[in-house]
C-alpha cells in the first residue's frame, strides 16, 4: 500500500439520465500515489464516474472531493486532473510537441520552459525526438504515448485513463500495461484507470473497484478480489470460478462446517468467512480451476480427494483446461493443470482422482 493520504473522496455520488440511474450512490476513497481501477462490464457506470471526476459531467447528487476541496461547480479546466481519452483525442492540426505543450500554453508559460517540459515529458514516454512529427504520422501505440505525455506534462494530482489500451493489439497492450504501471510507480502520481478487462486491472492496480449497474460490488486489492470475491457475480467476472452446491451443517466458536455436495465435508474458520456473508445463508461455494488438482500418479496426495470423470480437455500449450464431472453434479467443473515435463493429458472419459483443500473454498450466500 502506498501513502495513505486521500486524494479523491466520492461521497454518495449519484447520476441519473432521465429515469435511468447510471450511478446509485458511490462511496470510495482513493489514496495519493495509488493505481486505482474502475472495473466492470460496459454500461456499469465506470466511464460516467471517471467523466464526473474529470468535470465533464456534474453529479446529480453527492460530492466529489479532490485533494480536500469540493469540486462542486468547478469546471474541468480548473481541476487538478488530466485525462487520457479512449480515442486519445490527439489534436490533428498540431504536431507532437504542439499537442504535448497545448496545456502549458494556457498557463502562459514562457516558450523556452514549454519546450523543456515537453522534451522531458516525451522522454518519459519513450518518444524523445518525436516532437516535430505530425499527428497523422503516429502509430496507435505512439498516439497513446502522446496522449499520456500531454497529461503528464501538466503535473496533475490525478491522471484519469479511459480504457487507454483497448485500441491496441494484444502484444502492445501487454507491454504498455507494464510500462504504465512502472511509470506510475516512478512518478508517484495517482492513476485512475477505467477498464472492462479484468486481467488488465489485476496486473496494473493497487486497488480495484468492481462495478455492476451503477454500484460498487467490491473494492479491494487484486489478490483479495481474486481469492475472496464478495459475491458470486464478482467471482465469475474476475477469472473463472467453479460454483458448487453446499449446505451448512453447524456453526460454532471455531468456525463453520459445511457439506459440499460434490466434495464432502469441510470446516472453515470464521476468519475465512467473508464479511457480510451470514453463515446461515451459505448455499454455494466457489473453487478456482487452479485450486483443484488432477491426481494422475497413484503416489500423488492431496488434503482431500474425490473420484471423478474427465469429460473433455482443451490444450493451451502451457496449460490444459479440463472439464471434469464431480460426483452428484449435473454440470462439469473446470480444472486447470500446468503442463509440466512428463505430465500426460488425461483422455476424455477416463476416471481421475481430484484433489482439493479447505483453504481454497470461497463461501457465497
Amino acid at each position: 500500500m502506498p501513502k495513505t493520504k486521500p486524494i479523491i473522496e466520492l461521497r454518495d455520488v449519484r447520476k441519473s439520465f432521465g429515469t435511468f440511474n447510471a450511478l446509485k450512490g458511490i462511496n470510495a476513497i482513493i489514496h495519493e500515489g495509488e493505481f486505482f481501477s474502475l472495473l466492470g462490464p460496459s454500461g456499469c457506470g465506470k466511464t460516467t464516474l471517471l467523466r464526473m471526476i474529470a468535470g465533464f459531467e456534474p453529479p446529480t447528487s453527492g460530492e466529489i472531493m479532490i485533494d480536500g476541496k469540493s469540486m462542486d461547480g468547478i469546471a474541468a479546466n480548473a481541476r487538478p486532473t488530466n485525462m487520457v481519452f479512449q480515442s486519445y483525442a490527439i489534436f490533428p492540426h498540431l504536431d507532437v510537441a504542439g499537442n504535448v505543450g497545448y496545456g502549458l500554453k494556457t498557463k502562459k508559460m514562457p516558450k523556452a520552459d514549454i519546450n523543456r517540459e515537453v522534451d522531458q515529458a516525451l522522454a518519459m514516454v519513450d518518444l524523445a525526438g518525436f516532437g516535430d512529427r505530425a499527428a497523422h504520422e503516429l502509430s496507435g501505440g505512439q498516439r497513446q504515448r502522446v496522449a499520456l505525455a500531454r497529461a503528464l506534462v501538466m503535473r496533475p494530482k490525478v491522471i484519469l485513463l479511459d480504457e487507454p489500451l483497448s485500441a491496441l493489439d494484444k502484444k502492445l497492450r501487454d507491454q504498455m500495461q507494464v510500462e504504465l504501471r512502472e511509470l506510475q510507480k516512478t512518478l508517484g502520481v495517482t492513476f485512475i484507470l477505467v477498464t472492462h478487462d479484468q486481467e488488465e486491472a489485476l496486473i496494473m492496480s493497487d486497488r480495484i473497484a468492481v462495478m455492476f449497474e451503477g454500484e460498487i460490488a467490491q473494492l479491494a486489492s487484486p489478490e483479495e478480489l481474486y481469492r475472496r470475491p464478495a459475491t458470486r457475480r464478482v467471482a465469475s467476472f474476475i477469472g473463472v470460478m467453479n460454483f458448487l452446491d453446499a449446505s451448512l451443517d453447524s456453526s460454532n466458536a471455531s468456525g463453520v462446517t459445511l457439506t459440499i455436495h460434490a466434495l464432502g465435508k469441510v470446516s472453515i474458520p470464521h476468519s475465512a468467512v467473508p464479511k457480510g456473508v451470514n453463515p446461515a445463508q451459505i448455499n454455494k461455494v466457489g473453487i478456482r480451476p487452479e485450486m483443484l488438482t488432477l491426481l494422475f500418479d497413484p503416489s500423488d496426495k492431496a488434503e482431500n480427494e474425490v473420484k471423478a470423470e474427465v469429460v473433455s480437455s482443451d490444450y493451451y500449450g502451457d496449460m490444459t483446461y479440463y472439464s471434469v464431472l464431480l460426483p452428484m453434479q449435473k454440470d462439469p467443473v473446470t480444472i486447470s493443470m500446468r503442463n509440466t515435463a512428463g505430465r500426460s493429458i488425461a483422455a476424455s472419459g477416463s476416471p481421475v482422482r481430484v484433489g482439493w483443500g479447505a483453504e481454497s473454498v470461497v463461501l457465497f450466500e
Partner: protein
Amino acid sequence: MKRGMAPEWLTSYAVAYMIFLYAPVILMPMFAFNDATVIAFPLSGFTTRWLEVLWSSDALHSAVWNSTIVAIVTALASTFLGACAARASARYRFPAQRGIIGFTMLPLVLPEIIVAVALIVMLMQLGMSLSLWTVVAGHVLICTPFSIAILSSAFASLDQSLEEASFDLGESRWGTFRRLTLPLVMPGVISSLLICFTISLDEFIIAFFLTGTDATLPVYIWSQLRFPTKLPSVMALGTVLLVLSIGLLVLAEWFRRRAARRQGLDASSSKGML
C-alpha cells in the same frame, strides 16, 4: 467482364451526355471572342472588342460592385448562421431536432420564385422599401442551407473528445474554439464562404424581385438581353463569370478535401457538394 472496360454503348452514351451538358456553355466563350454582332455560325474572326465594351460600361461596373457587396455580405451572414446551426445539430440533442434541422434545410428545395414572391409580399406588408439589403436578406435565406450542409460534415467529423481534451488541459471555452475548433473547421468555413458567394453572385429571381433601383449583375445582364446589339458583350460577360465561378468552386472543393484529409478521412468518400 474485365475491370476498366466499359461496354461501347456506355461510352457513347457518356460522350453524348457530356456534349448535351456542356455544348451550350462552350458556345458562350466562342461568341464572346467572335468578331460579329450577330450570334450565328460561321464565326467571322477573333476580337477582344466585346471585353473592351464591358470595361468601359459604367452601368456594368456599378452592377458588379452591387453584386460583390451583396455576395460578400451574404456569404459572411450565411456562413455564420450555418456554423451555428451545424454545430448545434452536431453537438446538442434537443426536442424535435430532426424536424428543426429539416426546416432550416427547406429553402434548398423551395422554388425560388415562391420564396421571392413571399418575401416581396411580406416586405410590402411591413412597409419596407426595396434595396440591396432586401436582396441580401433573400440570398441569406437560400444560401444558409448550403452552408449548413457543408459545415455539418465539418462539425460532425470533429471528434467531441478533442474539445473535451482541450478543456481538460485548462483551456477556456473561447480558447478551445480559437485554438482547436476554428482551425479544424476552417477549410469548411472557407468552402462555405466561397459557395455562398458564388450562389449569391449569379442568383437572378430573388435579386430581380427584391432589388430597388440598384441592379445586381444578373439583373443587369437580363436588362441587356433586350438589345440584340448588346448580345455579344453579354456573352463576354458570361464568359468572365463562368471562369470566375468555376475557379471559386474548384477552390471551395480543394479546401473541403484538405479539411477531410487533415482529419484523416478519405476525401473521396465524404459527402461533398460537388
